[in-house]
């Protein structure tokens, strides 16, 4: 009897220990990156965040081009992916014949299972040449001719660049946003939905007036989750962004992101300051995604407790 009780205490203590381990893991990641980036912040101060120069030869480093690239690619990716993801979620919940729901839902989710590196190699050899010969000349020819606004689409169609990276990112986050939105749409009480249909509302009206208002918080959570993924995505972006530490107005120009800079330069970085600057970039990326993902999870959690009530 006593031995069994000891077993209970021990088992409980062990599982609790591993729960603490998960908590500590996050703290350890932040602490180790912060420690590693001290030399960089000591040398450049907060100016590190706002400096545009990235010159390993002269040992001066600034994070701005990488931060800009990370934010702009993720932003464009969200602009492209969010409407598509809603379309998919609406199709799966409202339009799709029940028999096809599972298979089509699974196929869309398989898009999320394909690893980043596969998107990268596909983007480099298939998508980039395709965009270079079709979409990019068309953009330059039409939107690129508008004064001011046209600066976004100036320059030669290189294939590789900010825009191509954003398109790849959009495809990669699409399944995440779509599956969260679908799950959230399904939490709308059948009673509400059926009442609206009973009053003669069309499917589009049910979506606009019943489903979207009811699931707003969850939708925003899903979008933030997708954004969190897009910000940290590495390999696919590294293949197609062109890796240039410059900030150009044109979306067709090559750029870089934090993760692409790390993937490209870390193993070749010589010197303490270079390595430390790269670790500091990693810290910045981690802090940004941490904030975005915390908000996302908070919203999804609120959504979850709301329909439990």
């Amino acid at each position: 009897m006593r031995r069994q009780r000891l077993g209970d205490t021990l088992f409980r203590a062990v599982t609790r220990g591993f729960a603490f381990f998960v908590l500590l893991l996050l703290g350890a990641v932040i602490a180790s990156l912060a420690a590693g980036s001290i030399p960089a912040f000591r040398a450049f101060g907060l100016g590190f965040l706002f400096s545009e120069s990235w010159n390993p030869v002269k040992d001066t480093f600034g994070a701005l081009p990488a931060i800009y690239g990370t934010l702009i690619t993720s932003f464009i990716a969200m602009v492209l992916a969010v409407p598509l993801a809603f379309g998919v979620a609406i199709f799966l919940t409202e339009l799709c014949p029940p028999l096809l729901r599972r298979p089509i839902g699974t196929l869309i989710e398989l898009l999320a299972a394909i690893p980043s590196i596969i998107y990268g190699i596909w983007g480099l050899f298939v998508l980039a040449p395709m965009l270079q010969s079709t979409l990019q000349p068309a953009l330059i020819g039409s939107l690129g001719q508008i004064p001011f606004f046209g600066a976004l689409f100036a320059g030669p169609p290189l294939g590789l660049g900010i825009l191509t990276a954003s398109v790849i990112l959009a495809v990669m986050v699409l399944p995440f946003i779509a599956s969260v939105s679908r799950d959230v749409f399904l939490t709308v009480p059948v009673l509400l939905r059926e009442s609206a249909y009973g009053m003669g509302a069309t499917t589009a009206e049910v979506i606009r007036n019943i489903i979207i208002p009811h699931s707003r918080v969850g939708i925003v959570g899903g979008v933030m989750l997708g954004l969190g993924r897009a910000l940290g995505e590495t390999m696919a972006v590294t293949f197609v962004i062109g890796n240039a530490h410059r900030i150009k107005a044109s979306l067709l120009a090559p750029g870089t992101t934090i993760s692409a800079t790390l993937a490209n330069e870390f193993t070749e970085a010589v010197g303490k300051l270079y390595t430390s600057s790269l670790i500091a970039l990693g810290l910045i990326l981690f802090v940004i995604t941490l904030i975005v993902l915390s908000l996302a999870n908070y919203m999804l959690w609120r959504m979850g407790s709301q329909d439990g009530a």
Partner: protein
Amino acid sequence: MDSLLYGRRRATNFIVLSLSFAATAAGLLVLFLILWSLLRNGVPALGADLFTQNTPPPGSRGGLLNAIYGSLVMTVAATLIGTPVGILCGTFLAEFSRSSRLAMAVRFINDILLSAPSIVIGLFVYVVMVVPMGHFSAWAGSVALAIIVVPVVVRTSENMLSLVPASLREAAFALGTPQWKVVTMVVYRAALQGMLTGVLLAVARIAGETAPLLFTALNNQFWSTDMNNSMANLPVVIFQFALSPYADWQQLAWGGALLITLSILSLNIVARLLASWSSFGK
């Protein structure tokens, strides 16, 4: 007047539904485009050489044997390290402390780790393992991958354990069984299929991970079974070969990409089938 209104509402409805149909079609089209280019470029690279030769210097014949071996070994090691940690943490959340403050915090942090950028995990392991040890190693690579396994397994094992009916536990308790025996011999057994699904999904997740291996396992041109040394692995080889200017290296990269994708997609499908057979699954 009414017919005009009806017409407009029907037209709006038609447009919204067509757009949502088009969005789904676009998503599926991209999936098929990717699979199609993988097959078209990857199948010619498949052959006996791919599985029997090591990665070649540019311009000569070779295969991916060392990379396939490295990927397998590191994936297995990472799964063996990460799974017990994940299951025990999931057990704590589902069995001992469903709504305590600690449990809420762990759940929140775990969900963040689930989507945290994998390249940062690689950087973390570089700082805490590679730098102190003084060299890149397959162990460091495995640990980095294990850190990615943990949150996936925590999430699925907690969910699966929570699905086990309380009456099963109560029946066992009524016989005077201590809790650790109830959990390990009754609840685990009932949730086995579901937890296995979680592990398979975790394996599928790390099988193609590249970013955390770049600074930990690095790469190795040669055959190596030394876990304390840098080790070749498929994702990093694909990265290096695809970006090279040599046609035969690019060919091998496509072959490797096809291998990885096929294994990941089949792992995913097996996991899903397993989940739908599971006794308490949805």
